[in-house]
């Protein structure tokens, strides 16, 4: 089972990185969204896979016994999903604002913070 998941995770990473490497900001954004899923799946698989039994303790028991899914990676991933969405939304709005101001989606032309041929700092005192 893990082999299939490793393959899936590597496809997720390949696609995410490929999109992140393109110059166009929309594709970069899509890459960010996919990268989040890639990392979540990586953590999820790393915590081992158990089919169908959620980590919920039965009514009449005090301790979770028997085979059940690993709860810890789930807790980590759950908050990660929400946070990566927040960041995704932030980047999306940032991209939209940048497009409005600069009228381009090509990151090569977004040079406000680091302009081309920036003058050297003053050398005097």
């Amino acid at each position, binding site marked *: 089972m893990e082999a299939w998941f490793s393959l899936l995770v590597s496809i997720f990473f390949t696609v995410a990185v490929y999109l992140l490497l393109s110059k166009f900001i929309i594709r970069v954004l899509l890459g960010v969204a996919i990268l989040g899923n890639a990392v979540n799946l990586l953590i999820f698989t790393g915590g081992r896979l158990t089919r169908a039994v*959620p980590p*919920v303790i039965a009514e009449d028991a005090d301790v979770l016994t028997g085979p059940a899914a690993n709860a810890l990676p789930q807790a980590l991933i*759950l*908050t990660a999903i*929400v946070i990566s*969405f*927040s960041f995704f*939304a932030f980047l999306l*709005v940032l991209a939209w604002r940048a497009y409005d101001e600069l009228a381009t989606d090509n990151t090569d032309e977004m040079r406000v913070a680091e302009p081309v041929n920036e003058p050297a700092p003053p050398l005097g005192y």
Partner: protein
Amino acid sequence: MKSIILRTVAPFLTGLMILFSIFVLLRGHNAPGGGFIGGLIAVSALAIYGIAHGVETVRRAIFFHPMAIAGAGLFAATVAGLISIVVRVPFMTGLWIYPSVLGVEIPLSTVMLFDTGVYLVVIGAISSVALSLEERGGA
């Protein structure tokens, strides 16, 4: 959105979803659910309502500014952590009381307050984003 079906169904759907989100929040400690999921369901409800009836209607309906709701949530979560100071145990230690109302024992805890805080933050922050984007989209 012009669809008459959606406009008719939306208020009921939204109400049901918000009720469901509270249910999910409260049962979260013992069954799948919790603040994050509950909050997201509520946000979806508000988003549907916004699509059907316009953002202004939603803003009027929730009365508070979404960020104010989020702030209140963060405050509640922090307070839930700080209550433990009163009984001199470390920050964020979960505390439980079992008051009996009409013969039914109701477990209350700082953990529940904390989860409610999470719920409110998620509702506030994400619906604020969704609403402001919908608003711009409509303009």
